[in-house]
């Protein structure tokens, strides 16, 4: 589960990770008061206004309505309102959003941490994630902070370091020291970095997270270490241990149809194609999408109806798929195991009748337990439903239906 930067910073801060301070507002009228309060707390004279959306690349992104970037600097309290107006309420388009962008419902007004001081500032990259190959967590870090880490990985892979953590003992002090040395730090900044890494890893483990990405981690001009940005992904399967974090979910950031499907226990991902599909099992669902593509079309969605494909679920799934106006045909692909195909077939017929008019062709492929009986039910239903048993036959029927 993804959360906003301001929520991520609040969580990190509660574990002792030092972060850039800020105030979140959702109304322009509150911006100046929030900025003044921030100055009282931190002494900052400049402010960074940051759009709060679930997508990266905000700094370079453009707000469609105003032309403003998604992260802007207000050089003084008198500029705060104008800068917030440019970002809040608009649609921010970044390289990670769709062309329509994401609506900015909240902005974070953050302290300026790049103030001048006794030494130069430096930016680093740091993430905590699972190494799937070893089944252990690792800290990935780089001296090349503040830029796209994928580009760093491609052009200068030797500047990316990893430190793997042994689950039986956890992160050790020699490891935090190694990280601070590899980042070229000394003196006060070295000590601060070691503390920062220790707190960050503790936060990762205790929050049941599946990814932390802090880019940049800043060494300030007075040798403090701060998380300037924070991307936190919580493990959805761990949320039962953190009821308070479940409330951080912002469904306005998600596709409304996906949210609705999720509330009915259907695993649905919207895609850009025109052939909808309804499948039992995630692997077979992906395979069905691939087959649609090989037949010369593009899948409109991923949809796993799960193990109990009864009439009510099939109907809900049909209604979800049909919300997408691009859908020109629907392929139902069920491999009946414990689920009997004749029951699913009856479910399809009942759902069809209950919805009334479905104006796109439906191809139903039922294989496995009672597949033949299922085909008879579909064929005798009098509905505009094409049936198939073999997988290849289903692909051909999709082509026939759309020809």
């Amino acid at each position, binding site marked *: 589960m993804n959360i906003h930067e301001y929520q991520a910073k609040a969580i990190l801060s509660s574990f002792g990770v030092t972060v850039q301070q800020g105030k979140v507002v959702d109304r322009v009228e509150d911006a100046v008061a929030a900025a003044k309060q921030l100055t009282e707390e931190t002494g900052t004279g400049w402010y960074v206004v940051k759009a709060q959306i679930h997508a990266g690349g905000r700094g370079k992104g453009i707000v469609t309505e105003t032309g403003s970037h998604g992260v802007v600097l207000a050089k003084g309290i008198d500029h705060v309102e104008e800068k917030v107006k440019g970002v809040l309420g608009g649609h921010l388009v970044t390289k990670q959003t769709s062309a329509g962008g994401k609506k900015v419902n909240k902005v974070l007004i953050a302290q300026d941490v790049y103030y001048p001081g006794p030494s130069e500032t430096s930016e680093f990259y740091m993430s905590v994630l699972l190494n799937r190959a070893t089944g252990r967590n690792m800290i990935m870090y780089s001296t090349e902070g503040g830029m796209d880490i994928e580009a760093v990985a491609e052009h200068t892979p030797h500047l990316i370091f990893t430190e793997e953590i042994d689950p039986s003992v956890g992160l050790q002090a020699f490891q935090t020291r190694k990280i601070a040395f590899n980042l070229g730090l000394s003196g006060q900044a070295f000590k601060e970095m070691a503390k920062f890494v220790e707190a960050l890893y503790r936060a990762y483990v205790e929050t049941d997270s599946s990814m932390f990405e802090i880019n940049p981690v800043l060494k300030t001009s007075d040798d403090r270490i701060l998380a300037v940005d924070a991307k936190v992904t919580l493990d959805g399967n*761990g949320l039962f241990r953190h009821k308070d974090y479940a409330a951080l979910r912002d469904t306005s950031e998600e596709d409304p149809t996906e949210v609705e499907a999720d509330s009915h226990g259907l695993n649905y991902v919207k895609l850009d194609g025109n052939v909808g599909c309804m499948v039992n099992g995630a692997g077979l669902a992906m395979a069905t999408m691939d087959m649609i593509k090989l037949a010369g079309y593009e899948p409109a969605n991923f949809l796993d109806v799960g193990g109990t494909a009864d009439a009510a679920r099939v109907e809900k799934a049909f209604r979800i798929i049909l919300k997408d106006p691009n859908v020109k045909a629907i392929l139902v692909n069920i491999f009946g195991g*414990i689920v009997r195909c004749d029951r699913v077939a009856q479910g399809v017929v009942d759902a069809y009748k209950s919805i009334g008019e479905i104006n796109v062709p439906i191809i139903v492929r039922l294989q496995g337990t009672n597949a033949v009986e299922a085909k008879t039910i579909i064929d005798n239903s009098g509905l505009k439903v094409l049936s198939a048993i073999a997988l290849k036959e289903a692909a051909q029927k999709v082509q026939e239906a759309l020809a």
Partner: protein
Amino acid sequence: MSVLVNKDSKVIVQGFTGSEGTFHASQMIEYGTNVVGGVTPGKGGTSHLDRPVFNTVAEAVEKAGANVSIIFVPPAFAADAIMEAAEAGIATIVAITEGIPVADMVKAKNYLKGRKVRLIGPNCPGVITPGEAKVGIMPGFVFKKGRIGIVSKSGTLTYEAADQVSKAGLGVSTAIGIGGDPIIGTTTKEAVELFMNDPDTDAIVMIGEIGGTLEAEAARYIKSTGNKKPVVGFIAGQTAPKGRTMGHAGAIVGGADDTAEAKMKIMAECGIHVVASPGDIGETMAKVMSAVAA
């Protein structure tokens, strides 16, 4: 011979008396699997499905001689169940449970390291050796006895492959569903290795999906054996968008190396017969086998 489970396996069910455990234990018994009992803490000494219930796995091992365990325990307690089975000396643990927190699996995987135990799953359909033992939730009748080994991350896609292989006039030695989670006990490579060393397996169907590096690792291993046995491979998710989780927690494209395209390329380079369409698995295997025979 087959691999992992056979007619001599003595199977216990952890989470025996729950609804999932009860349903699938009955199905396994009906199939002919030698289910010797089950474990539900607090219900030890009672009987369920005409089989004894034990309080601990250790007791099931001691009193019923169990050597295989299948786990239907809810996600919050599943990693604990895996570690309990390992500690009790169970040789093969099959974890069906979906939705175990990753942090719990980091601990469990570490706990299993160095022990003489094989974990299959979690989030998997289980293992079946047709005609001998079904230790999983798959529909048994789809799997006809034969000499093709199947290893797959996905449940229904495993059934699809088994069905196609059977309809192509071949059959299955053992089918292993390794699971779709980011951390799993047995990798694709390890499952393939079992089949390479199994005298009752002549060829292998290897089904993967986007995310991770398991298929590439298996492909390189297959090449290193000198392609001792032919392998037909398929990767699901050629049309999956980057950065989105497709049902299985582990099915997410992170970079350039874990796309379906990249995996299929490596597999083909390593001498695997890669099919682009999941509808071609059976036919391709039949062709490969008749070429071997000729």
